[in-house]
């Protein structure tokens, strides 16, 4: 869609910004926005690396009468829409004879239920991730196929494991088993992806037209070039070709569906604190859902192996070092604090989604939000009984108010398979799944 209305005057917006530039910058704009979608389903995934202190994460009782655990108490307001799953194994994340790679394998295992291939080369391989499988069903007519975001910089040197391409840890979403989707860190880039470039309708239209014709010529240029190079180079050019085609088609789609959705002012950059940063990325995702720019999003809230410290909550130690707690009580407490902090961040997103009307309910009713990690106890890189919760999605048939414990050896993939079903994706198998968890009856 081409955005045809300009939001509040810039000055109004700028005035509200202080040192904390990323304070919920979109809040002021929300009244100007009008809900667009016709009750379409949405899907959001939040990944946290390095596992969790499971003793503080897992509720003790099962069923509807479970008591919220200390870590999960940050989302107590959403308890009626919360399902906690215990006992699900990320078996694909285990080493299976490979050397190293505990961290790189965890996220692909969680998201795709496929064992990542140990390689630093171009032959990297995992599986198509849950979000992309769902996106291919529900985002066929949205401006963006999906939105991938992260708060961790990928240009930190030496942060990837030997023998494993950085993509395994940097990317949460894989479009195909061989195409990881880079996650975006810059809020402004995300904003421009969502709304296009330009500040007037005319500008946006002109730009879209120019871009489309440039892209059109470009496909020919690449196609020609592709015919005259070897196989390996051809694969690279094909990647460019496909990307160009993809963008071109999205522009065509945008041009054909006019909308009077107002464009809020763009964010100025990367906020200075973790909290503001995460909130801003959640704001953008909620906005993308609200404006129906896309229906699927991911946020890597903590990359595997991340060394981020959280002095603001009294954890000056690096996250990864904390996760290797050696059963030291102080470190275990710090580990749980980080987990609880991340859950509190999720609460912000849930509140946001729940405050936005959509159809005859709220956005949260139409969105299943999954949060979890590919590891349970980070101390020993354990991939069994990983932390995973699902919140929201009432109108998709998701039930809440549940803590379900599964027998030993139940693949996490069963949950993912059950999830795809709620989105109208009917597949028999997802990674190593051996049954589907029926989310409407649990």
């Amino acid at each position, binding site marked *: 869609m081409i955005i045809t209305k300009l939001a509040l005057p810039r000055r109004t917006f700028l005035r509200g910004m202080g040192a904390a530039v990323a304070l919920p910058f979109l809040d002021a704009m929300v009244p100007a926005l009008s809900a667009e979608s016709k009750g379409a389903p949405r899907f959001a995934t939040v990944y946290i690396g390095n596992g969790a202190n499971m003793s503080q994460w897992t509720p003790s009782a099962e069923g509807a009468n479970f008591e919220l655990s200390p870590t999960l108490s940050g989302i107590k307001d959403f308890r009626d829409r919360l399902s906690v799953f215990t006992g699900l194994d990320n078996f694909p994340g*285990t080493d299976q004879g490979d050397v190293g790679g505990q961290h790189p394998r965890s996220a692909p295992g969680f998201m795709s239920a496929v064992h990542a291939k140990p390689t630093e080369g171009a032959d990297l391989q995992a599986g198509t991730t849950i979000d992309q499988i769902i996106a291919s069903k529900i985002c066929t007519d949205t401006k963006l196929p999906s939105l991938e975001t992260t708060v961790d910089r990928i240009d930190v040197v030496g942060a990837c494991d030997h023998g494993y391409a950085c993509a395994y840890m940097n990317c949460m979403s894989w479009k195909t088993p061989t195409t990881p*989707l880079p996650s975006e860190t810059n809020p402004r880039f995300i904003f421009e992806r969502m709304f296009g470039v330009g500040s007037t309708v005319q500008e946006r239209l002109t730009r879209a037209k120019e871009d489309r014709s440039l892209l059109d010529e*470009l496909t020919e*240029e690449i196609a020609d070039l592709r*015919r005259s190079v*070897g196989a390996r180079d051809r694969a690279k050019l094909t990647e460019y070709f496909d990307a160009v085609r993809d963008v071109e088609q999205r522009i065509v789609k945008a041009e054909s569906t006019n909308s009077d959705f107002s464009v809020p002012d763009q964010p100025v950059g990367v906020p200075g604190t973790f909290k503001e940063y995460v909130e801003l990325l959640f704001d953008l995702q909620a906005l993308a859902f609200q404006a129906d720019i896309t229906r699927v999003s991911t946020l890597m809230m903590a990359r595997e192996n991340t*060394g981020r410290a959280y002095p603001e909550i009294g954890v000056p130690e690096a996250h990864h070092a904390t996760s290797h707690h050696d059963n030291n009580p102080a470190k275990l407490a710090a580990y749980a604090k980080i987990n609880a902090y991340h859950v509190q961040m999720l609460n912000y997103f849930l509140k946001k989604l729940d405050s936005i009307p959509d159809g005859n309910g709220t956005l949260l009713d139409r969105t299943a939000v999954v949060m979890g990690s590919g590891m349970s106890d980070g101390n020993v890189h354990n991939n069994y009984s990983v932390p995973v919760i699902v919140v929201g999605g009432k109108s998709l048939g998701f039930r809440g108010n549940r803590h379900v414990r599964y027998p030993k050896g139940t693949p996490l993939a069963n949950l993912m398979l059950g999830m795809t079903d709620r989105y109208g994706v009917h597949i028999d198998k997802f990674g190593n799944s051996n049954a589907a968890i029926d989310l409407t009856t649990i």
Partner: protein
Amino acid sequence: MRRRLTFLIAGAYAIFVVGYGVRGKAQQLAAPSSPALAASQPAAPQSSADPASPGAAQQAVVKRYCYTCHNDKLKSGGLALTALDISAPAKNIESWEKVVRKLGTGAMPPAKMPRPDKATADSLVRYLETALDRAALDNPNPGRPGLQRLNRTEYKNAIRDLLSLDIDVASLLPADTAGYGFDNNADALTLSPALTERYLNAAAKISQVALERPRGMPTPETFFEPTDRSEAGRFSDEMPFGTRGGLAIHYVFPADGDYLIETHPKENGANDGFENFSTEIHQLDIAIDSVNILSAGLGGPEWSGRNRLGPKRIENEQKMLEKMKVVVHVKGGEHLVQAYFAAKTATVPEDLFDPSVRREPYRPVGGVPKLSWLRITGPLSGTASISTDTESRRRVLICSPSSATDETCAKRIISTLARRAYRHPVSDGEMEVLLLRYRAGAKEGGFESGIEMALRKVLLSPKFLFRLESQPPNVAANTPYRVSDIDLASRLSFFIWSSIPDDTLLDLAAKGTLHQPEVMRQQVTRMLADPKSQALVDNFAGQWLQVRNVQTHQPSPETLFHFDDNLRKALEEEMRLFFASIIRENRPITDLLDANYTFLNERLAKHYGIPGVIGQDFRRVTLPEDSVRGGLLGKGAILMSTSYPNRTSVVIRGKWILENVFGTPPPPPPPNVPALAEEKDPRKVLPMREQMAAHRANPVCAGCHSQMDQLGFALENFDAIGEWREIYPSGIRVDASGQLPDGSKFNGPVELRKVLREHSDQFVTTAAEKLLTYALGRGLEACDTPALRAIKRGSAGDNYRFESLIQRIVVSVPFTERMSVEMSNHLAQLKLEPKGR
């Protein structure tokens, strides 16, 4: 078009003959035709080997010392040697190269197993090296680099060299993922729809700005001051004397016009409003290129303790913000925008070394007002006009058309741009496509609009964004061939400059003389002397030595409260200047380990406890022989980036040394490492050294940690930001003694430095490996090892000086050659002609 093609093919043939005709017979290389080859010549085979059965004696050594573990059954470390024929090592290059490496560095046989004496081991290593090198000469395998996309840094530099335009690339493109330690790795540089959109935006914006033709509403650009920057004094050379703190920004103004420049004071996060304002007036100045454009007195009665948060707070703050902004007419092009406070003796200086003045993370108190950010918006609507004499316009618009229908000038401009951007002579076909764009643009908005459109197209072309290399016709598949001079020009410039080749390189390549040894040598010397070779410091060293991470490292403000942004900048600058001195002064690469000088300013000297350095300019400081700061391991940048935010880690530092000095990165820890015994009582948690000892008592861990931890111990006197300490915060005295498995003992950084120096040969190998990985943009394989040895041999006579290493790399087989591939439709040349439109 036809003529150029023929020329290229002829050129390629010529190279083929010169560079390739002698291949296939190693004897002929015994009388080398160039100094480059002479230096690469391996030593003659050992005469001691049994002539009847070459290698019989060596086979016996391998059998005696290696078969116990490396047999077909056990295959320890994935290596089985029993079935291999040592008289023909070329058949199992990978396995034998492993043997050379492990035996040569003394890593094998493992401790407690029988070891051959040094002479025997050396003889075996020499035998294998000789045989493997000879095999590589007979059957060279230059490998096949993947198709490299320009990474973000290369893109920025290419724009600088193409258009004389300095872009803030981080605001245009996302960062790239690394592979094998470097972000120019072909396999890691993927391309997604999201990135394609960024390229579209970047191309549009850059071509507008280059020609000073901005369109649409101005986008505000905001620049933040780091929250932990100390504002006690003058911040940088780009600030006038008598000022404190602030921001200095090099900004490219997209056109002549009026710009709004706003500043914003730092606010207190706890909603206490603008920080540190009072009845006392503070003077804020804004200047462009040191010409003052705003002076504002901030503060006054309405900022008294009672009033500042009173009912008029919003009004007061609004008034202050009004005072802090200015609209000014600026000429297009790059200017320095400065904003700062006037220094006053009356202000309370904040003392970062006094923990009592810090009350919460990153927020010094009792201080003075600061800036939070500065924002530039413009040109404001209706005020823009094209600036006629910016550097980038002069660079691009090399002529002007004589009439509206005259295309000669457009052709000249576009072909010059395209030649530089595509890094090859432009074909008629390529020109035709670009001219179509030009005409479409010119029709809409005249000559310059046409140029802008053509430029925008150039910047999106795969020929600009990818480093395509051509293959001469009629080369059989899987045969090595010398890359063309045109491709060689790009290989050189992306290696040394991280950018596109300049006209000199392109001209030499077009003449077909670039590959000549003497021409190459001169060019490399010239390129290293060019300031653009700073790319080797920022990109190569920045990644190899992990200095890039200094920028994002966040030391814990609770334990390391005296860390600030000023120190961060100083640590980076020291490393940059130090590595640059190795290049600029053409020093032996081993000087990195123990050079007796460094570069300091007052902030850093204070941090290091070195007296006599006053002022914020960096200068070279000679260190005493026993200084703990000599060489890489005394540099705060490395000591900090190998620490956790709040404490040191002997493991990370030890691993860093193993990886970057010894070139023997430890294997990843085994899965499901057993946890150490649980200790519930925090008072009984062991001190670090004892904890590590318990760790090493576990045989699963001991193999690697006995090396890593010990190396790390020697640096324990440096805290997590590289400051010297004798005791830990817990009150325990630092014990910096360590011992390596080979028995060498050391205590503290000075003695460790001597140990490293004894391993300088391994360090040279590591440096050469990292340089070659970076130069090729791919991970190294066993087939590259002979080239590495040739690089080392070739530069040994020159004491491994930086330039000689580079000179050897650029004539090495993997750098100058390429393995041919099967072409999809046997087109000899990149097909440059587009489909007719």
